[in-house]
């Protein structure tokens, strides 16, 4: 059974967003997404320093079964990326909401956060 932590925002394309105290947001893929993908073997990380728009492809995840695009859930500048995923992509399977984060974005338009789903809303579309 997938987990859908409260307090996160979710995109319908299976990314999660956590708003940090400094106003930046941390982005990753959901437990449901990693379950669907199965064992993840390669991750093409987002580009550090890139300006991205919401719904733009920022990363590719390759599992044994499939390749899957990851989209920016929100517009802004990528200020940090999780290098650990390059050598240990399986962290995303074991800790999708923790050590398996993908990047941090400083949002250019915070109102976009309101367009994302809450835990219940996201859980519903995963059924």
């Amino acid at each position, binding site marked *: 059974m997938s987990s859908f932590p409260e307090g996160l925002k979710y995109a319908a394309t299976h990314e999660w967003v956590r708003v940090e105290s400094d106003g930046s947001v941390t982005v990753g893929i959901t437990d449901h997404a990693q379950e669907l993908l*199965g064992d993840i073997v390669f991750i093409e990380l987002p580009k550090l320093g890139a300006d991205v728009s919401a719904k733009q492809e920022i990363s*590719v995840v*390759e599992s044994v*079964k*499939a390749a899957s695009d990851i989209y920016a859930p929100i517009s802004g500048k990528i200020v940090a990326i999780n290098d650990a995923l390059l050598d240990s992509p399986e962290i995303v399977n074991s800790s999708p909401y923790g050590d398996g984060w993908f990047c941090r974005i400083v949002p250019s338009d915070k109102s976009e956060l309101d367009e994302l789903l809450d835990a219940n809303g996201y859980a519903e579309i995963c059924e």
Partner: protein
Amino acid sequence: MGHRTPLYQKHLDANARIVDFGGWDMPIQYQSLIEEHHAVRQHAGMFDVSHMTVVDVNGADAKAWLQYLLANDVDRLKETGKALYSAMLNADGGVVDDLIVYRRQEGYRLVVNCGTRDKDLAWMQQHAKGFQVSITYRPELAILAVHGPESIDKVCSLLAPDVAASVQALGNFKALESGTWFIARTGYTGERGLELIIPSEDAPALWDKLLTIGVRPIGLGARDTLRLEAGMNLYGHDMNESISPIAANMIQTIAWEPASRQFIGRAAVEKHRAQQEAGELPCLIGLVMEERGVLREGLRVVCTVNGQEREGVITSGTFSPTLKHSIALARIPVGSTDCHVDIRGKLIPVRIVKPNFVRFGAKVFE
């Protein structure tokens, strides 16, 4: 709801993720495909392959009919229990299916694919006219494949001592029968192992006993990565009714001699063989990509033949859990060099190797 094997409840009990596979509800994986893969390469794993089709062939003309039906020659089965891999071809030399045929004390046993069951049975009936042969589909049998370096010892620990001794002595590609159990040294992983064809009612108890002695359940996901590492073809992907066995690395499974044996598709594949020698028919090879990324079925292969750019296609691709990089089978022009694969618009260099990557847990190509 799809068809279910006698082990369906056992899969649920083992937390399998169930998917539709050719109309059957089958386990794709239990916890981790990669861990299941390593369990087979390093220890022992069991696969429920009861969805596959067992067909028994008997009658005075059983041998003559199989010599007509199959591209390989059952005359090569000189003793009871011996097994042979073969294609069943159509008149155009396309592959109707690939299968294993075992010689029994009386008659033969065939194991054909799941997705091709109805087509195969109809094909067999259609081509049985004029032969004294009975063709019996055996849906009441279950098939459990147990593979890995520890698999034979583990299975034998559950058998009566005399049967265990016979199984231990069994050569590769050989089978024996003990009561209602048919036990074969065949499989689809590149490891030592057994395929047990047994009455459905015996399957759940055998599964439980194997589980107790540490044989791990393996889903269809790891079955695919294991067979691809072993360079074994998958029907419907690496070959089908419009692909010649010559273009699918199956030339060794065609028995050309005696020239007088008229099997279905013979004239066509003789032509294909000449075409391939002339460079007009592609071949199936192995590809290795040591960079990051995964080769996938359907990706375009760009290569060079005599200074000219030509194209091929990946027929099966995966990440190899044993080698930790991607491998694939691809159908490309004969004599290709300088191969690249088009991955999301980028041409990534790949190496051409013999289509055999891992045997008995270890890398086998240069």
